[in-house]
């Protein structure tokens, strides 16, 4: 090893952790290792290749996924807590694993550049967080309508004033109705797996939609966890843009020039119906994505302890906290289950109804104030489940979620030992043995609806 190489700061796996240029021996090709990568099938990369256990941060897990993703184009604009991830993608660019990379002007420009590059037919990746998500959201919300395959990470953080950089996943609520596919990663392993699998799902002809992967800033991005990874010398096949649902864009030539042509509804001879069916088609593509999510990600949700009648329904870091709550409750002799929602869009409505068929108590912990997951769950289970439902606990603005807070909700909600442990507005329905007691009062429902 040369002297210059030994000066390189590295993590325990030997990967560079600074933004400095990769130092290589004179005369050695800096892209040498990248050039040795060979293309394998997605199935081999995901399920068959041997995996090695490493202990890395969420940002590093993102980097390692992109190393194997055969990405053509990536644009970065820094924002905490995303900056480290995109800085590491810059390191990959230096090593030749990403073909093009630059820093954008701001998020609107970044998301617009991703749109152009994706429509031109190359595989695209970027990441942002919190205020950056909202700054870029006009462009992001146009991706599904343009049928642009791309993968974007949202390292969730506070977006509202007063400004803060701490974890809070409120931005997910803004993304739920853009038409993009949206996954919520719980830990570093999810980050690695979801990113790689998202490229394949996104580029399926009958899907052809962008995929967003949200995970909670700092809790996942900056914390280390164990990740099982296949070797560095294999990668996904390249994007086959000519099999997409829309033509590869040639800005000057038909068959489709999009922005160069006038809006689809401008002519008096054109029907409002075109935009209506266009939106239907985006959401139809979401439906079609379900089979690939089942094939590659083992389902839109994960059910732990399906025999339980008390369930946590959670996603992201709240799912991780719920696992620990399950353990504490088991020590107290209370058997609980966890339904982890992997895919927020498409939402696993039927799977959730199935899993909750026998549930008596449902607790929905979240890292945001408005409780977007509780809304989703309530809608999905309306008329399908008689469980007592507790929309919470919820923490926000950068707070952590003590596991005891979740345990309290279960004890307060199930046993009615100390109902004051559950805020009045967070609870609806009743765990009861008589039909009369199962009746839900209108006041309860009103309070619950105001609370979520």
């Amino acid at each position, binding site marked *: 090893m040369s002297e210059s190489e030994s000066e390189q700061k590295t993590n325990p796996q030997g990967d560079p952790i600074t933004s400095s240029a990769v130092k290589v021996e004179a005369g050695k090709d800096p892209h040498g290792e990248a050039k040795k990568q060979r293309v394998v099938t997605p199935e081999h990369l995901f399920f068959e290749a041997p995996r090695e256990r490493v202990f890395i941060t969420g940002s590093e897990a993102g980097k390692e996924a992109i190393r194997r993703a055969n990405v053509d184009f990536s644009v970065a604009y820094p924002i905490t807590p995303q900056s480290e991830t995109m800085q590491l993608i810059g390191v990959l660019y230096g090593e030749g694993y990403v073909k093009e990379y630059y820093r954008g002007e701001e998020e609107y420009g970044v998301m617009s550049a991703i749109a152009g590059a994706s429509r031109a037919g190359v595989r695209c990746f970027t990441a942002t967080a919190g205020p950056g998500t909202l700054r870029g959201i006009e462009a992001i919300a146009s991706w599904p309508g343009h049928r642009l395959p791309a993968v974007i990470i949202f390292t969730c953080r506070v977006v509202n004033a007063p400004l803060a950089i701490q974890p809070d996943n409120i931005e997910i609520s803004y993304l739920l109705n853009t038409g993009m596919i949206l996954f919520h990663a719980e830990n570093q392993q999810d980050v690695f797996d979801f990113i790689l699998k998202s490229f394949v799902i996104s580029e399926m002809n009958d899907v052809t939609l962008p995929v967003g992967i949200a995970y909670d800033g700092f809790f996942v991005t900056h914390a280390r966890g164990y990740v099982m990874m296949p070797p560095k010398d294999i990668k996904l096949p390249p994007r086959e843009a*000519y*099999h997409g649902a*829309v033509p590869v864009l040639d800005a000057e*030539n038909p068959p489709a020039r999009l922005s160069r042509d006038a809006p689809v509804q401008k002519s008096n001879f*054109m029907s409002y119906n075109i935009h209506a069916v266009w939106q239907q088609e985006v959401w139809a593509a979401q439906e079609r994505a379900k089979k690939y999510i089942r094939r590659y990600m083992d389902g839109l949700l994960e059910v732990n302890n399906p025999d339980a009648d008390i369930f946590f329904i959670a996603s992201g870091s709240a799912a991780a906290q719920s696992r620990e709550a399950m353990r504490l409750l088991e020590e107290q002799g209370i058997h609980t289950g966890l339904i982890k929602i992997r895919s927020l869009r498409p939402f696993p409505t039927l799977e959730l109804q199935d899993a909750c068929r026998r549930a008596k108590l449902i607790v929905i912990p979240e890292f945001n104030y408005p409780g977007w997951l509780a809304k989703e769950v309530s809608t999905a289970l309306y008329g399908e489940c008689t469980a007592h439902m507790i929309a919470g606990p919820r923490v926000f603005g950068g707070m952590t979620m003590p596991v005891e807070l979740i345990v309290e909700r279960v004890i307060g909600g199930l046993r009615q030992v100390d109902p004051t442990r559950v805020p009045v507005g967070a609870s609806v329905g009743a765990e009861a043995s008589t039909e009369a007691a199962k009746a839900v009062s209108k006041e309860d429902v009103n309070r619950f609806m105001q609370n979520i």
Partner: protein
Amino acid sequence: MYLKKEHLYKRDEPYVLKPGPEGYVPPAAASMGIELPDPGEGLIYGRKTNEDAVMEEIAKQMLTGKNPTLFPGPLVLWNWNEHARIKGHAVLEIANEIPGVMIIPMPDYRPKYPKIEPEEEINPNHPNLTIWHNKIEVCIFVGVHCHYANLTLKMIRAGTNCLTVAVCAEQGHEDAMLTVRDSDDSKLRRLAQVIRKVRESMGIPAPTRPPYGGGKREIVTPGEWAQIRAKGLAMSMAGAPKGIPLREGEMPRV
């Protein structure tokens, strides 16, 4: 009443794709639980069925429906590459088996201003105008990019009584009443043979003249038609790209 009685469904009743007009903003078939066919299968009115059975149903409908029409899209209409040319020729073989068939192209997807000429072309932004104008009650879309085909199929089902067929090079289309998938040139030729077989079994004589254009206008003479078929020429558009290079090792599957 915005929906016709026959298009109203009970809660647990499977959704069936029928010719419309289905009414004001009918749902996308995918959102009603209709899934795309697996390899070797097609869809008949939303149900997964053996591909041979689907082809026979396509043949029956195209041979008996009013004003049968082929709508070739950019993928078979333009001379992108050799495979596109071969496939375009296979589409002409299908046309050559259907008496009185019209060929109306979908040359591109751009909105047309100030208005479309419905005898010249069909466009995904307002396909109903071409269907209505030419009184088309059964049609085949082939060589249209999937997104634009899906838009077109939804609008036709909403506002017209036309039975739609999608012959797709990829996974097929739930919003078409009949669809087959993975349609390369050999499968297109197989469809032409099935149509011939069904036509003969129904006692329908072979076409005696070339396909019409929109409005049943004559677009080629029998002599020109024979020449087109003999040379295997794809239709071409002035200014169209001359070919798209494939990635190394990529098989053309236009």
